[in-house]
């Protein structure tokens, strides 16, 4: 992956349009892992410090994306220090990042995707970690001790995993989507016009179109984007899809018969089935091996925190097996715990056997494709295609 020389506009008092290069950062990928610098004015705290008394840790994350019991158990664990945990929510990480940057939100922990790490490190918005406070890293897949997006996990701890695929109801869809030659084709099948939805996330949805055509999901090529544009337009005119992120309620309530879905949402659907209806009608298919589309998000400590010890202890807390499994029950999204396997989750009753395919395997994560950061000009080209699709042209 080529090095990206990113420049930032000078944000002077008049808001002038003059641009001035202020930063350089790399685009991380499995082929070109990145070890971020540790700056002199942004170093990890020393080891062996006592946790701060009276700390209130504010976590900036998505709505319903953190089990309240995890917060309670942390407060109980550090009761002697008077620890409290609060949550502030955001709709999307891009806007959230903007608020952190402008000081609009005061938080200790942020929940970004890994394509934002470069910007945050370069702008010194996040603080490097002292690993001695986070021994539970040993509970998660070994990949995360040296992830491609943050070699030697200097700034990040993994949070939850999300594969992407298709969910459907067997009582409304006659085909077994998983056995189709190209399962993605069903999203273009006129038979399911006005009965399906795709995810309202440009990288995920456009990535799905690229996967349908066996193309890399982080393409820079204009011809690939032109193909995505054509096929999304075809979809708009043949199946009139809903474009939203409420698939986890829409499928159980039969608003749609099938949908593009994150694996975590597919697991969540089980708890949204109306009373009297069996969740056995729900199915999920996600590509596996090198075609798998699997990503994870992260927890990072913001530089603005006043409680770096307690904040890192909270990061450690979230990787505790019992906390992580309880959080999985609440969010439907899977933590990368080594003890979690599809068989165990089925055996323990967290997931029915019919939905075992929604559980992400370590091999799929390691072999699969990840949504990577795009250079600004390429990202703008992606956004333009998405904008046209959403405009319903």
């Amino acid at each position, binding site marked *: 992956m080529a090095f990206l020389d*990113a*420049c*930032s*506009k000078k*944000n002077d008092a*008049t*808001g*002038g*349009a003059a*641009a001035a290069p202020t*930063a350089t950062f790399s685009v991380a990928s499995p082929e070109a892992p990145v070890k971020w610098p540790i700056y002199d004015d942004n170093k990890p705290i020393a080891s062996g410090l006592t946790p701060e008394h009276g700390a209130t840790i504010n976590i900036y994350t998505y709505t319903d994306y953190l089990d309240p019991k995890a917060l309670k158990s942390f407060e109980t664990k550090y009761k002697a220090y008077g620890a409290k945990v609060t949550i502030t929510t955001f*709709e*999307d990480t*891009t*806007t959230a*990042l*903007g608020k952190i*940057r*402008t000081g609009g939100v005061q938080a200790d922990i942020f929940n970004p995707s890994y394509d934002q790490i470069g*910007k945050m490190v*370069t*702008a010194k918005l996040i603080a490097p970690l002292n690993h001695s406070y986070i021994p539970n890293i040993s509970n998660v897949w070994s990949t995360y001790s040296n992830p491609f997006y943050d070699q030697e996990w200097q700034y990040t701890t993994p949070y939850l995993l999300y594969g992407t695929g298709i969910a459907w109801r067997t009582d409304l869809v006659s085909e077994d989507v998983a056995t189709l030659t190209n399962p993605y084709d069903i999203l273009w099948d006129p038979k399911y016009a*006005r*009965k399906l*939805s795709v995810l309202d996330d440009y990288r995920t949805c456009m990535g799905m179109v690229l996967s349908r055509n066996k193309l890399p999901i982080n393409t820079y090529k204009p011809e690939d984007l032109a193909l995505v544009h054509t096929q999304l337009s075809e979809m*708009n*005119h043949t199946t*009139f*899809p*809903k*474009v*939203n992120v*409420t698939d986890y309620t829409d499928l159980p*309530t*039969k*608003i*749609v018969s099938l949908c593009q879905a994150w694996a975590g949402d597919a697991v969540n659907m089980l708890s949204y089935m*109306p009373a009297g209806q069996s969740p056995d009608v729900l199915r999920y298919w996600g590509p596996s091996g090198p075609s798998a589309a699997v990503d994870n998000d992260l927890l990072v400590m913001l530089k603005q925190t006043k409680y770096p010890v307690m904040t890192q202890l909270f990061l450690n807390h979230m990787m505790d097996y019992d906390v992580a499994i309880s959080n999985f029950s609440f969010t439907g999204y899977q933590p990368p715990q080594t003890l979690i396997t599809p068989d165990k989750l089925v055996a323990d009753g967290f997931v029915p056997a019919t939905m075992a395919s929604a559980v992400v395997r370590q091999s799929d994560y390691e072999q699969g494709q990840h949504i990577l950061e795009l250079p*600004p000009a390429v990202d*703008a080209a992606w*956004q333009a295609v998405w*904008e*046209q*699709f*959403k*405009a*319903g*042209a």
Partner: protein
Amino acid sequence: MPGVLWLALLFVLPLYIVLCLAFGTFDPVFRSPIPVWNPLQWDFTQARYVLDHIVGSDGFFGPAIERTFVFVFIASAGALAISYPVAYYVCRFGGRRKGLLLTLLIAPFWISYMMRMLAWVNLLQTDGLVNRALSLGGLFPVHVAWLNGRPSTVVMGLIYGYVPYMILPLYAGLDRIEPSLIEAARDLGASRFATFRKVTLPMSKPAVIASLLLVSLPMFGDYFTNDLLSGSPSTAMFGNLINNAVLVPQHVGEGATFLILMFIVLLIPMAYYVRSTAREEGETV
């Protein structure tokens, strides 16, 4: 003076900020919008992008704008068709129950627009009450997917959502018509229908125009009804274009440009209303 201050704070200043965003730039790393406060430094790139993509072979914003006009026209007409008879009935035949009827008409205001739309989401589900009612208790299985990209559902939602806003000004307008004028028309031999056509209807014209404006202006910017009752790009409206743009930080300038365009377009009916009101006031004097 208070009026000038009110206008400056709540109209001129926000409009200026919108202009500074529309003609501003964005941070290429964080993608956040950068308003340009100095008009001499305004950058028209984002505004030009929007204008270049409204008409022509590359006009992918055009269909949503056309669709908005069609939806708003039908929904406003539909709302008027429902509201006028209701307001007329309450005004002429409400009698001692006028207060109660008006209270019932205002009742939807007590529930948020979002909640009312969410109620429809429930009713219009494939297994919902509407399909069950249409199936006459299961005699004729009906599986209409009302919530999946149907223009008719969006228009119905707009009508339902905005009808209360139309009834009240219509009622106020009809209530102001002197009963003696109607009695005079009847005394002079006009039938009920002729009285309505020659007296009530012309005299309620300002209220009709005001109520049409009152509902059609917010309908033009509405994105919520489409998001909840359709969610499909195939029914996207002008408001959805704005909402889609402002949700992407580097497209905020485009969103601001859409807003200015909408403002200019909506000035036309506003100007017509102000002119016609002024003319009628002049005639009255």
